[in-house]
Each structure stands twice: as structure tokens, then as C-alpha cells.
């Protein structure tokens, strides 16, 4: 059993969904972490959940990225540990500089809340290691500012370093403009850092991790993390 820490900012609202998925569906140890905490020693994975931290004031994720806990999350990530940011968590990761690019207003200017398909673009990271390239997952999105933007050099770098993990697609895996819910550059739905241990994604895997919620494919992402921990974290007294 591994210990997941779920960071709670003022305005986070998917923290309990993540807790439920990790604790009750995946049967892992899980703890909420108020954003003032700085000691992450005891954790194996940190989750930045969705929501509207600080009311999305100034820019989404911008104020949360300066919370005391984020310095520790940065160190935790630099040590090679898994960090996953979902929706607002992704916005916090780009604002903190742990991931490149930015998330701007949806091109439709509307809040988009629906099921989408994403295609697995690479499995050379710990979050999709259990999947095959080309696999199509159905996962819900719910955001107003999920339009991924980066400059052409950064985009090139993302491709060359296999940092693009998910792209929005149709149900057969076709990358089409119609399947892009927010205007993201090249249909990007999720990216990792260069090392592949920090993932940011707009869709919500915690909302589709059990049959009761009409979808279980989100569970695959958490299971990939656990598989990686099994291989890399055989710490005495744990696992």
C-alpha cells in the first residue's frame, strides 16, 4: 500500500473525489494536505486536484502556485517522485513552472462539462506505462480554461521529448478539430515534464474510476502509478 497526498487549496473541490478513488477504489493510503504543509517525506505520490483555487483570481492556478506547499512539491518532483495535477491542478503546475506552457480561456469562451475521448500518445512515462500507444480512453472534462498554449519551440520540444501524453480525439482515436473541446494547440489534453514523473491533464480520471460512475478508464492512470511504485519503491516496512 502506498501513501498518496492530496493537496487542498482554498477552492479545491475535486479533492474528495480523488480521495475516494485512491482510498476506496484503489485501496491505497491517502491523506489530505492543507496548502500550508511543507513536509512531504512520508508520501509516494502527490495529487493536485481540480477545483477553483483562490476563485481563479488573477489567472487560474497563479495564486495557488505560490502556496508554501508548492516549494515542497517542486523538491518532491525533482527527486523523481510522481506528481499528478488534474484540471486546476494542471493549471497550478504550469503556473509554478513544473510544466511548460499555459492554459488559457476555452476558444468557445464557454465552460465545457462533458465526456471526451483522449488518445494515449506515448507510454514512456509512469502514468501510462500500463497502456498502449493509440489506446483511446473516455474521461470527462469540466473546465473554462483548458486551452493549452505554448510557443512553437516549446511545442517542438514536447514532441521530441515524448512529453505529450494525451490528445483529444474522436471515439476511434482520430485527432480532429471537432473532438477538441477547448481549442488546445494540437489537441493536447495532457503533458509531462521532461523526466516523465510530473503529469498535468485537463480530463478527470478520478471521476471515471468505477462502474457506478459509468466509466472505469480513469483507474488505468492510477494503476500505472501504482505499478511504477511497485517497481521503484520497495521501501522496507512499506509496500
Amino acid at each position, binding site marked *: 500500500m502506498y501513501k498518496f497526498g492530496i493537496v487542498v487549496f482554498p477552492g479545491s473541490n475535486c479533492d474528495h473525489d480523488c480521495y475516494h478513488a485512491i482510498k476506496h477504489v484503489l485501496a491505497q493510503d491517502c491523506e489530505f494536505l492543507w496548502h500550508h504543509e511543507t513536509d512531504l517525506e512520508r508520501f509516494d505520490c502527490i495529487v493536485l486536484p481540480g477545483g477553483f483555487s483562490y476563485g481563479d483570481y488573477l489567472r487560474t492556478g497563479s495564486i495557488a502556485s505560490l502556496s508554501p506547499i508548492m516549494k515542497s512539491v517542486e523538491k518532491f518532483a525533482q527527486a523523481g517522485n510522481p506528481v499528478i495535477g488534474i484540471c486546476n491542478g494542471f493549471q497550478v503546475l504550469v503556473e509554478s513552472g513544473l510544466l511548460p506552457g499555459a492554459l488559457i*480561456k*476555452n476558444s*468557445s469562451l464557454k465552460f465545457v462539462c462533458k465526456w471526451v475521448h483522449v488518445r494515449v500518445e506515448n507510454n514512456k512515462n509512469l502514468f501510462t506505462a500500463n497502456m498502449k500507444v493509440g489506446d483511446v480512453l473516455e474521461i470527462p472534462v469540466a473546465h473554462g480554461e483548458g486551452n493549452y498554449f505554448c510557443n512553437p519551440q516549446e511545442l517542438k520540444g514536447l514532441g521530441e521529448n515524448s512529453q505529450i501524453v494525451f490528445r483529444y480525439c474522436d471515439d476511434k482515436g482520430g485527432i480532429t478539430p471537432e473532438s477538441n473541446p477547448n481549442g488546445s494547440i494540437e489537441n493536447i489534453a495532457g503533458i509531462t515534464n521532461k523526466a516523465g514523473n510530473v503529469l498535468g491533464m485537463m480530463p478527470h480520471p478520478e471521476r471515471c474510476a468505477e462502474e457506478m460512475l459509468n466509466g472505469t478508464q480513469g483507474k488505468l492512470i492510477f494503476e500505472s502509478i501504482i505499478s511504477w511504485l511497485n517497481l521503484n519503491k520497495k521501501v522496507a516496512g512499506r509496500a
Partner: protein
Amino acid sequence: MREFKVKVEVKLKPVVLDPQGKTVLTALHNLGYDKVEDARVGKLIELKITDSDASNVKERVDDMCKKLLSNPVIEDFVVKIEE
């Protein structure tokens, strides 16, 4: 010590699409203002700062813009200082 009034204009970089600006442009055209060619929506942040001299203020505010007030990936900023 002097009191400075600082205005920080934050705008999206020209290469970043501004759907809000596009919508404002369409609305202006609908009102009959058909000579308007483009509209971009930005932010204005006003600060009140007490400091000994203006060059300090400029340096500090530039720093604030880089760290928090703007996101250098998508935005440019302009700082105007009044006493």
C-alpha cells in the same frame, strides 16, 4: 518616503489568440461600429507603493510582474509610475 501610484497593464501577447477580444469585436460590429478592426482584452492592476525613489519602485514592480502579476508565457506587461 514617497507614495507612488503604479499602473500595470497586462495584455495577451500578440501571438496568443484572444477569444474574448474576438467576441467583443463581433459585438462592436453588431452595434454598427464597423470601422473597428481588432479588439484585445487585457487587465489593469493599480498598486499603491511607498518607497524612497522611483527607480526602486520600477525594479520591484518589474519583479512582481515576472513572478505573479503576469504570466510571461502568454502575457506582456507595461508599468506606468505616477507620484
